[in-house]
């Protein structure tokens, strides 16, 4: 008997005639209400992200002056800053990414209630590694991508894509159980919130 059959046999023996519950009570909020942008901003800032609201992307990125700036394929060309050294990711090495000044990406979904942005690797968001190694991550979120809460976010996401949920810069609670920012991921997270449809 192989281990697969062994384990499945053990489970069946353990369960006997146990029946699953008739239905799952889902009486919690489903996030159908419209997303509150003010709440998103407040929650992002509470976890030490810097939010830029209703400002032009290219100028905002230029003011942060990351050099060089990594961008994924498919990035909106209007977002690219003038006068900043831009490196397009076409398989850049980990060393190059780790030495970059920052990375600029789009997002797929943002969750107002938790102050979370989600990247799914589609055009404009790039490989997971590019938003991980640079110390500064600048992420552009459109208002129509913001949902109220976690259930609404999951409903919009495609599980077959590699997903990264980001809530503030890298942090740890491992020293005396208090949150401090700045471990392995980007230590600075800037979110540019576009309110008008782009």
């Amino acid at each position, binding site marked *: *008997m*192989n*281990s697969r059959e*062994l*384990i*499945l046999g*053990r489970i*069946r*023996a*353990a*369960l006997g005639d*146990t029946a699953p*519950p008739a239905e*799952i*009570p*889902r*009486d*919690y*909020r489903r996030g159908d209400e419209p997303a509150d942008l003010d709440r998103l901003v407040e*929650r992002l800032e509470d*976890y030490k992200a810097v939010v830029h609201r209703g400002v032009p992307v290219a100028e905002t990125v230029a003011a942060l002056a990351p050099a060089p700036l990594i961008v994924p394929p498919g990035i909106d060309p209007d977002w690219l800053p003038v006068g900043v050294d831009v490196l397009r990711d076409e398989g850049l090495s980990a*060393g190059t990414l780790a030495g970059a000044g920052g990375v600029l990406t789009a997002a797929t979904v943002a*969750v107002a*209630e*938790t102050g*979370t942005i989600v990247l799914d*690797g589609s055009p404009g968001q790039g*490989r*997971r*590694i590019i938003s*991980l190694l640079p110390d500064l991550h600048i992420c552009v979120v459109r208002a129509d991508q913001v949902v109220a809460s*976690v*259930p609404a976010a*999951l409903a919009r996401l495609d*599980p*077959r*894509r*590699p*997903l*990264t*949920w*980001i*809530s*503030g*810069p*890298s*942090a*740890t*609670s*491992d*020293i*005396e*159980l*208090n*949150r*401090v920012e*700045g*471990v*392995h991921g*980007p230590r600075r997270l800037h979110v540019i919130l576009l309110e008008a449809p782009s």
Partner: protein
Amino acid sequence: MTTFLGMPTTSPRGVGHLRGDEAFPAAARKALGNAQLRRNLGHATTTIRAKSGAVIAELPDWQELRTAGSALKTDTMARLPELLAQLEENVTAAGGVVHWAADANEANRIVTELVQATGETRVIKVKSMATQEIALNEALEAAGIEPVETDLAELIVQLGHDKPSHILVPAIHRNRAEIREIFLREMPGVDPALTDEPVILAGAARRYLRETFLSTKVAVSGANFAVAETGTLAVLESEGNGRMCLTLPETLITVMGIEKLVPTWQDLEVFLQLLPRASTGERMNPYTSMWTGVTPGDGPQNFHLVLLDNGRTAVLADEVGRQALHCIRCSACLNVCPVYERTGGHAYGSVYPGPIGAVLSPQLTGVEDNASLPYASSLCGACFDACPVKIDIPSILVHLRNEAPHPRGERAAMHAAAYTMDHPRLYAAAQHAAKLSRLAGRRLPPPLSGWTASRDLPDPPPETFRDWWAKR
């Protein structure tokens, strides 16, 4: 010994970290003598209780989420064979390879051989209770493979040649000054001017591990959730070490207990709300990574999932105790437990300490191997209230106390008491005899003196209820 194939089996002896060297009372006595440990624990648990309470209070539907989480786990356990087969099918279809490990020895062998097949001699690890449970690091080291723990608390434990003492924060027993000392002593290339500010300590870990992240080709992780419907795995973390391990290497090996799956993608909407708030007291942890098999051009191109039994089927066979498998490893029960807060995690002798450990460890090993743990509780019930999936830990503790082997004298006394209570005349006679003990004072004679050493014997009433009733 005959092994009946296909019968639920406890975790084997001689491997892994589920059994302590001594019983809980003896280990707890030593821990209670450590004033620094008690201060560190008191500070940390007070901090986390306040944070967690505040973010839970923000959700008007916390109780509804708990109810849904509990029902989802009950459903998962009842349908485990079909859900595991579904998970396997979907992971395989997405380019992953699924392995089944009946116990710790088999899991360690599978992972070791997978690493050896890559030709690498170092792996980076993201914090995982399952790999702690099976002592994977020791098995890898024995095979000449260096495991590097990358979670800050695990790193503190590894550098300090120490043992984990908390599910979420294995170094909770260390304060910032002690962490600084460990880093100065054990971390190669550390700045000798290191201070004990948490942000400075975190920065030291960042510098120390960065080159290792960039140059290691194999990673080992656990998993918080696996979705049967889609084959998606999820790891929730804070520091970005998880993202490093899940993104940079060429090969990723994930070790996961068979109970950690959820039926559908939608079900994550419950657990992604419950876990961070109950665990680190955050609305959402900084990073959650989800992946389904292999994504061409992004992340590890070889993905192995090891499904681990190691005693879980024995837990599942107990109709009262099986709800311990609903645990999502948030550690909220540890943070509210008056016993854990005073003894710390090492006294429990298992990688699963605190209230959930007191019900999980004895079931994984068989109660006879952890017979003192069901008593490591005052049955106050704070753990039940704090549990985000409503595991009734006090009821399982009482149930396991009945399962645990009892001393012969105690069993004889209990049988005698049961017989007496079944026979009204004997019971009346015993009550009258008890009145005589009013003359004997507040100490019981040996062998019962142990009970009165720390308690006063209550005064028997001058008149029994039966006598009073008979007079009316």
